[in-house]
């Protein structure tokens, strides 16, 4: 197995290692195929409160509460979930809460479902309008560095940071089996 294949398989592990490095203690998520391995790693990690949400907007409140209580938090969601959060993101801007969001993209490369395109195509622009700094990752080898840099910006600078994990990185969704 060459290095490229290894990192392709292990990019969720690289994100989890960054969570450990910066001491993230709460992770909110809505179940998602692209994030499934990272979710499993967080659930197994005794240092992380894994919080399964009914809608992504709940996660924004969770992050605010965690920070008020002295803990760092991250959110995992699909691009469609960004739309569910828009008004709740105002909490981050109004109070200056650090927020790290890892977003698996839908509605782009090899998307089979046109209904995903409407939100997926405006996800990054929506995040920017909400005050997020956004960083996109297409290559497995870039995940560690980009997520690490995003963590440092979020938690050293009390900033909202979104990392967009592209559909090319995640791979085609297998939907017909």
């Amino acid at each position, binding site marked *: 197995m060459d290095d490229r294949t290894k990192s392709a398989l292990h990019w969720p592990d690289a994100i989890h290692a960054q969570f450990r490095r910066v001491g993230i203690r709460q992770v909110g998520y809505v179940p998602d195929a692209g994030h499934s391995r990272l979710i499993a790693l967080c659930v197994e990690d005794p240092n992380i409160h894994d919080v399964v949400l009914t809608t992504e907007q709940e996660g924004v409140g969770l992050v605010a509460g965690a920070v008020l209580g002295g803990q760092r938090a991250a959110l995992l969601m699909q691009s469609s979930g960004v739309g569910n959060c828009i008004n709740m993101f105002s909490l981050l801007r109004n*109070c200056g809460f650090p927020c790290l969001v890892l977003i698996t993209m839908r509605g782009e490369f090899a998307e089979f479902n046109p209904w995903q395109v409407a939100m997926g195509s405006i996800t990054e622009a929506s995040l920017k309008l909400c005050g997020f700094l956004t960083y996109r990752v297409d290559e497995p080898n870039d995940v560690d560095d980009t997520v690490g840099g995003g963590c440092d910006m979020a938690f050293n600078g009390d900033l909202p940071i979104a990392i967009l994990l592209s559909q090319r990185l995640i791979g085609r969704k297998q939907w017909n089996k």
Partner: protein
Amino acid sequence: MLDRREFVRELLVERKDLLVVSGLGSPTYDVAACGDHPLNFYLWGAMGGAAMIGLGLALAQPGRRVLVLTGDGEVLMGLGSLATIGVKQPGNLVIVVLDNQHYGETGMQPSHTRAGVDLVAVARACRFTDGLYVSEIGAVHRVRDLVHSGGGPILVQARIANDDPPRVLPTRDGHKIKLRFMEALNAIC
């Protein structure tokens, strides 16, 4: 029916290091009317988010008590949060809903509780360990005991009169509210 200011005042008597999150609108004014406190996190927006802020805080501070004091419209906007809290079972989290059955900030339109939607039953169905409906001031002692020592998560639906007492406005500077809260909590940790 309860007088909202009297009920909240009695509820916060001898609050000690209780961590309080207040929902936007009248609950924020009610909490501020009891006297400002650095361990109050006043919301001026983010409708539907108060219970989840309480959950994040309760998970981060398992040794302290967390009270979310909010309104019926606010909790209705984040009803799924009750299911999320039910999964995590935070023993130190209590949500008190000041239920006037109306959207007071927007012109007193009736809310879902006016039509009989039962928040205590919703909380119980979401695995809250206790749920309580109160409408008389004599019950405030029991609610206060639950806030300080009840095994959560607990939801109390407090039926208040739908009047509009004078507004008592805390600072609207969210950065200040956040930093002050964090510094005060840090000082007692």
